[in-house]
């Protein structure tokens, strides 16, 4: 299946050791691409993050310097948003995993005798991609707005205080993040579970393990590659997301994440060094968390 592309193979392939000019030639476009569109912007980002305001004092004009103080200012000024970003991203990842695992298990294992149902459900998982991410989030904004039937219904049932809102709260932001990244969690999980050999589960129950123990000791470890790639595919973009948390969508004043801060620094305050330093902080923290996570889950092959 095409979706296996999301999963990581456990079999290590033999790497040909022979050096070849042809291979180098074939690699050249890729290397050029990486240099032009990854390395150069990265270096430029690092340089920008260290710039100091220009001597002439124009707003938005900066000169090259080694002003590492930008980082200190960013961290002290935006500490809340940095912590909030990762907190929301962790929550969204956990919720997406809890929602996606049973779904992926159903599609990949339970529905095996009915390939048509499998394919139908996979299409349903991917279907939201056919509509723009922004439109879907806006749709949720109106669905969760104070005037919506959902919110008025909750208020009528006294499940929500009369003056409470859903949009603009952390609940709405985490919900939006979870909703938007569920397919990225479900597909790698599906790809891993689809290849799960049920004979291992039978062997587990034959060896006196209750169904819950079989799940904990056999199913989870065997689907670990899928869990790791799903978590990475969800956590990394969620931590840097600026759509869900922005005030135009599901967020409010108190829900700004790093993405929103970077956006406002870059587009409104024209404080490029602050935006650049925040971007680098985001990148470094994500790298650190991901490295620690991958080490812990025992799938170093991914790095």
């Amino acid at each position, binding site marked *: 299946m095409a979706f296996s592309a999301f999963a990581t193979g456990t079999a290590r392939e033999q790497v040909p050791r022979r050096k070849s000019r042809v291979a180098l030639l074939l690699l050249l476009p890729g290397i050029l691409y990486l240099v032009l569109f990854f390395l150069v912007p990265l270096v430029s980002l690092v340089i920008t993050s260290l710039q100091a305001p220009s001597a002439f004092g124009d707003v938005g004009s900066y000169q090259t310097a080694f002003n590492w103080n930008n980082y200190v200012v960013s961290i002290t000024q935006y500490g809340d948003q940095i912590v909030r970003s990762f907190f929301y991203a962790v929550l969204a990842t956990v919720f997406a995993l809890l929602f996606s695992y049973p779904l992926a298990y159903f599609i990949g294992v339970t529905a095996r005798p009915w390939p048509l149902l499998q394919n139908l459900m996979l299409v349903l998982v991917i279907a939201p991609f056919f509509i723009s991410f922004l439109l879907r989030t806006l749709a949720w904004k109106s669905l969760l707005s104070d005037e919506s039937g959902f919110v008025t219904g909750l208020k009528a049932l006294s499940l929500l205080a009369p003056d409470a809102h859903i949009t603009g709260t952390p609940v709405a932001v985490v919900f939006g993040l979870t909703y938007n990244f569920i397919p990225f969690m479900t597909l790698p999980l599906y790809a891993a579970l689809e290849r799960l050999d049920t004979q291992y589960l039978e062997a587990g129950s*034959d060896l*006196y*393990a209750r169904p819950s123990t079989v799940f904990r000791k056999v199913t989870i470890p065997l689907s670990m590659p899928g869990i790791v790639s799903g978590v990475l595919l969800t956590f990394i973009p969620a931590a840097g997301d600026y759509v869900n948390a922005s005030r135009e969508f599901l967020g409010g004043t108190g829900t700004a994440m790093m993405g929103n801060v970077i956006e406002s620094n870059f587009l409104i305050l024209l404080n490029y060094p602050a935006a650049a330093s925040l971007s680098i902080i985001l990148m470094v923290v994500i790298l650190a968390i991901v490295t620690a996570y991958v080490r812990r889950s025992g799938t170093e092959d991914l790095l």
Partner: protein
Amino acid sequence: MATAAFAEAGADLELVGVHKRFPGFTAIEDLSLTIPAGSFFALLGPSGCGKTTTLRLVAGLEEATAGRILIGGKDVTDTKPFQRPVNTVFQSYALFPHMSIIENVAFGLRRRRIADATAKAHEALSLVELDHLATRRPSQLSGGQQQRVALARAIVNRPALLLLDEPLGALDLKLRRQMQLELKSIQEEVGLTFLHVTHDQEEAMTMADTVAVMNKGQIEQLGAPEVLYELPRTAFVANFLGQSNLFTGPVADTTADSISVNIAGSKIVVPRARAKRHSGQVTIGVRPEKLSLHLTAPEKTAETNVLGPGRVIDVSFSGVSSQYIVAVPGLGSIIVFAQNMGAGPMAPEGAETWVSWKVEHGFGLEDEASAAPRFTADDDTATIAVQKKRALMSELEEA
């Protein structure tokens, strides 16, 4: 719970009127079977005969449509696999790929919270001579080693009943012979009840005390290997367990201790005690190695049966013996195994020959004579349709 402690000894297994129906076909039909404690029992049959389904029913991996399963006198029909005092050596071993060998072997012990799980697992690994590989992963082991680990993982739990699902199928011939002997000696050593499923008749005969030949979801014949081989009851058993020459004809004459059957004009005598049917159309058989090949017409005596003349249409030399196929007009082909006593085959291809055998070596089958004594596949659309219809009819009748 029955699984809380090691089984002191093997338990006997009893299947009572077990049925298993899958959508579209019946895998097992009214199977009743008793396997005494401590025995090595083989279920032998072609693929699709229901032997693996039987094993899975005993393990609890499938639910019986009807019937009871008793282990050591206790009804386990409605219990889950993890509650049964049974362990399985799977055909593809099913060793957990994410665990080391020692963790694999200790898995069952840990689940039952048995003290010293690791020490006991090492002991079991020593039994199969693999303790030095305890820290490896299953993928780092060869097929034969994996097979032995799978065996250790099962017997370490001292199950009352050990189920073996063609565990030697993936091994090469030499390793298979070696493992057969090892399995047999382990069984004698630990005294557990072994239920071994295989399609390899040689394997079943060398290892098991009792062999049950299964066909189309039913047991055709059950007994000690020698008995099954010497006196097959049906054409299926006669052909599945070794080869047989089968002839069908009407009974011409009976005496107190023998019956004579008219086979294409020749009178063939079979001892009455070795024949299951004594009148009407009877199928009689003789094993190819019991036949002698003659280049001149042998004299027919009271102790021998003679058929011929026929023509040798094929000779295949296999070292110790040669297999001859002799075409006898009106009878078809007769297979003869003869030891190569001289240099080269005894009869060249095309030679005119007679075959003879001692009366006491013949056997008479219980089967109704049929045009196709060998089993035919029952998985074509028509058969499935007929089975479905039958199932529906019986359900309607019940309702």
